[in-house]
């Protein structure tokens, strides 16, 4: 991360610069304008409308989430004055909504950074929610002339991209880190801006994991379609007899890796995500065999059954390992080690399984 340029604050003299946030004045979530001329600031509603919730839902399902952003700049909540707190956030609409909906009855300024429509944590990791953008934005809205105090309240996860002491040096504003989760803002403000230890911890409960499942599924959908397409082509070419069983076996493994294993994460034995996923994948593979008459009257030839026992756990394990990207506690060093240990096993198992499946297809061809 490049250090913030230390420079003189230009925002203390001359007319206030125009507030780019005024471009949002016509948005449905803007309920008025505070002040006039260059000092004008849009006042935002603390109530989420159906359209806002629908936007959140669409975003979770990755439908048109790429430009789900609000204009950066200064917004008002309630009737803030020169002494009101300045809360800094990202310009991802979902994040912006999560913050404003917690601020009913609060008078505050909302300083929205240009994070290219990315949430605080991801943007901080990339550096767009960073010292440089913060310093620039504080300056650009002439914050020093709009408030009499010298404190910025940042979401705690913003600390991944913002250096508090560098911000203070460059802007004269002290940085105070608020709670990790926007839903704790009211309690944090009410307690005189003191965070309990719980407010400082990132939570990752069942609800959070469930919220991520749609995106995981959608991202897996495309490769899955390709696999199904390949099976279909092999069918057409007369090389395989892939049918309903293959379809639900594969779909089940996807569901296990993207939804079930992430949901049951803390309950599954082991520390490695791939292992957790493979365990459930194996259970699913056994279930598929049982569903097809094993062990008494198998309708599934043994090469195919064996192939399922190899491929499905590998697939579920791989998908679950990918979930490390969505968790809030996996370190890059840890993921690195996990991958070096588990990837070879998964690749070998999957390759053997696919060979068996192909062989099964060829055998069926010759039997005809």
């Amino acid at each position, binding site marked *: 991360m490049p250090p913030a340029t230390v420079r003189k604050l230009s925002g203390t003299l001359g007319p206030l610069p125009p507030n780019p946030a005024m471009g949002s004045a016509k948005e449905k979530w803007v309920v008025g304008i505070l002040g006039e001329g260059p000092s004008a600031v849009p006042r935002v509603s603390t109530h989420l409308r159906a359209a806002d919730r629908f936007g959140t839902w669409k975003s979770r399902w990755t439908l048109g989430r790429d430009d789900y952003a609000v204009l950066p700049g200064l917004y008002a909540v309630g009737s803030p004055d020169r002494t009101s707190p300045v809360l800094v956030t990202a310009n991802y609409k979902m994040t912006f909504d999560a*913050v404003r909906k917690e601020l009913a009855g609060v008078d505050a300024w909302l300083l929205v950074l240009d994070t290219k429509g990315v949430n605080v944590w991801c943007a901080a990791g990339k550096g767009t929610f960073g010292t440089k953008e913060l310093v620039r934005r504080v300056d650009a809205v002439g914050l020093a002339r709009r408030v009499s105090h010298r404190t910025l309240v940042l979401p705690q996860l913003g600390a991944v991209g913002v250096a508090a002491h560098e911000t203070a040096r460059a802007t004269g504003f002290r940085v105070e880190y608020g709670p990790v989760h926007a839903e704790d803002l009211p309690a944090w403000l009410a307690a005189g801006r003191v965070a309990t230890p719980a407010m400082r911890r990132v*939570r990752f409960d069942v609800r959070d994991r469930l919220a991520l499942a749609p995106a995981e599924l959608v991202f897996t959908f495309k490769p899955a379609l390709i696999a199904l397409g390949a099976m279909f082509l092999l069918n057409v070419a007369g090389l395989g007899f892939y049918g309903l069983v293959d379809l639900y076996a594969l779909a089940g493994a996807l569901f296990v890796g993207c939804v079930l294993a992430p949901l049951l994460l803390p309950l599954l034995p082991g520390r490695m995500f791939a292992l957790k996923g493979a365990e459930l994948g194996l259970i699913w593979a056994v279930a598929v065999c049982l569903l097809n008459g094993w062990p008494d009257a198998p309708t599934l030839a043994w090469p195919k059954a064996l192939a399922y026992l190899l491929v499905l756990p590998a697939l579920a394990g791989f998908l679950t390992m990918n979930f490390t990207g*969505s968790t809030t506690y996996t370190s890059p060093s840890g993921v690195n080690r996990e991958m070096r240990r588990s990837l070879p096993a998964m690749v070998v198992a999957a390759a053997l399984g696919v060979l068996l499946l192909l062989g099964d297809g060829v055998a069926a061809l010759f039997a005809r």
Partner: protein
Amino acid sequence: MKAQYLKNVATLRYDAAKCIGCGRCAEVCPHAVFAVEDRLARVVDRDRCMECGACALNCPTGAIAVHAGVGCAGAILLGMITGKEPSCGGPERREDGASGASCC
């Protein structure tokens, strides 16, 4: 839920001699890895560290160092293939900041 990942892998390093006890590390760490008592920081549980880098970035005296990055298999895999430093790739993965997802 008690989130636990692999043990003994975090690259977190802390030099107590440089600490001035300002408390920032404890304030910014989302996994309570640090505690500051009697104006001195202490590592409580380094296995909880997810290497986000917030503490090192915000320590005014440079008492903390960590190899920060994204704990995301997809990004690391891509990094292995392309030979580049793993990073959050593209706009495709962004989640609700309020519920806290780490990879992008």
